[in-house]
């Protein structure tokens, strides 16, 4: 119950009167109060003059603009304008935006401002250390190249350990051997046979078959446990001499007739090709490590390289560093292996 109306609570009665919530008795009481307080009559008239328009009913475009997009939480017209500048607006949304803009042209100003929010690149900014990021081509070194280098190095060191004299494979000349069924019947063909590199001494580079065919001077003693590798064991094979019949004059003053010419001994020149032997490596096909080492040694032998040169060239190529051997002979013998800035030496 609101009780009696007075100057302290009359606003409540005024509001209820405007809202239509007063009973007949209360209205009678209000009229009596206004009769006694005429100054408040004008105030009640002011209450009645206040009318609040419902925007959702009076303005469809405003109502639409007050709707919020579910995910962004933006008002509908904001969402549509941002979709427009983001190029994500659908045809339906585009039609809706046009409708809103037609009804409220001031939205065009907002749309223009949204277009200004697209940030252009600051072209004055560039990365100053770009040059330090550039990479050179990787040198692809596969495992067997390292293995080859290691095998050759090991072989060289063992070689030096046994004898202080270098092995010169180029001292081996080509010679004719008696292989009746073979067309290529020269000693260099022996290197095309299976090689056994783990044996000691330079003759090990030759085939077992050769050891049978070239007796004594080339082959190692078969049963010697640790055959020594020295200059004496390296047999120089005489160059091949073509065996042609020579007809000598029967008498001292007798000149040779045209029918019987004197034919001097002819050294057979052989220029073997190593192209086929390296085809497998240059084509990038996989070859076993021992086969690669054999091919490498064979090729360099045929090129006239010393064994040391072969080792150094191979290692230099793989390590991309200058590699060299140094030997010093004094009271103590010294062998140094220089790889770039590093030096490994051994004295005895």
């Amino acid at each position, binding site marked *: 119950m609101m009780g009696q109306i007075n100057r302290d609570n009359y606003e409540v009665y005024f509001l209820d009167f405007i809202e239509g919530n007063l009973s007949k008795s209360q209205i009678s009481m209000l009229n009596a109060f206004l009769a006694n307080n005429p100054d408040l009559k004008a105030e009640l008239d002011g209450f009645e003059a206040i009318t609040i328009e419902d925007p959702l009913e009076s303005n469809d475009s405003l109502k639409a603009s007050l709707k919020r*997009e579910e*995910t*962004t*939480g*933006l008002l509908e017209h*904001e*969402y549509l304008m*941002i979709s427009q*500048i*983001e190029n*994500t607006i659908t045809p339906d949304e585009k039609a809706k935006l046009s409708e809103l803009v037609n009804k409220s042209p001031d939205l065009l100003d*907002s749309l223009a*401002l*949204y277009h*200004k*929010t*697209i*940030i*252009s*690149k*600051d072209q004055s*900014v*560039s*990365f*100053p*250390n*770009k040059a*330090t*990021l*550039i*990479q*050179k*081509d*990787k040198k692809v070194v596969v495992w067997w190249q390292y293995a080859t280098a290691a095998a050759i190095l090991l072989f060289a060191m063992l070689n030096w350990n046994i004898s202080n004299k270098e092995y010169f494979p180029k001292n081996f000349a080509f010679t004719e051997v008696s292989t009746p069924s073979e067309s290529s019947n020269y000693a260099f063909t022996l290197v095309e046979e299976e090689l056994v590199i783990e044996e000691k001494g330079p003759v090990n580079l030759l085939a077992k078959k050769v050891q049978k065919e070239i007796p004594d001077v080339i082959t190692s003693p078969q049963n010697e446990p640790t055959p020594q590798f020295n200059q004496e064991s390296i047999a120089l094979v005489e160059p091949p001499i073509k065996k042609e019949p020579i007809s000598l004059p029967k008498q001292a003053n007798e000149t040779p007739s045209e029918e019987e010419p004197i034919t001097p001994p002819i050294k057979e020149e052989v220029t073997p090709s190593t192209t086929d032997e390296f085809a497998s490596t240059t084509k990038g096909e996989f070859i076993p490590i021992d086969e690669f080492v054999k091919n490498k040694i064979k090729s360099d032998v045929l090129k006239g390289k010393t064994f040391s040169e072969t080792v150094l060239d191979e290692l230099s190529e793989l390590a991309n560093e200058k590699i060299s051997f140094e030997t010093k002979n004094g009271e103590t013998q010294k062998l140094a292996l220089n790889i770039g800035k590093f030096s490994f030496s051994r004295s005895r």
Partner: protein
Amino acid sequence: MTVKEYNNTVELYSDNVFRFILKNIRDEEKAKDIVQDAFAKMWLKADEIDGEKSKSYLFTTAYRTMIDLIRREKKQGDWEEVKEQSYAHNDSYSGLGEILQNALQKLSEIQRSVILLRDYEGYDYSEIGEITGLSLSQVKVYIFRARKSLKDYLVSVDTVI
């Protein structure tokens, strides 16, 4: 990814990624470090990266490195100090670009990142999502709210001027 593709990425995108990071953290030395670090990581993983996706990988790596740095430095307490210092020196505006650069700094880190990826690099929402680790709808929400904030900032600056 070949060496050539890697070097092409350096030539084509090192400026872009540096600009992106610099605009985010506004510290040139740290931005350089982050870019260097991103390229170093990319080089280490070069064998595993598809050359056609090198730009995306670069931005992703740089962005994550940047976020790690921000989080680390926030813990140490010096990040806010850096922000305050950089805000302090520029309160006058000479053009829309400069106003927008200031407006960018008012955005949250994630809003700034997505807006820069969108406007600087032209990435679509899914690409931005891949780089930042956000869902498609999250990217959209951040971009829309960022646009609204930028527009409101322009209105406020216009009122002040």
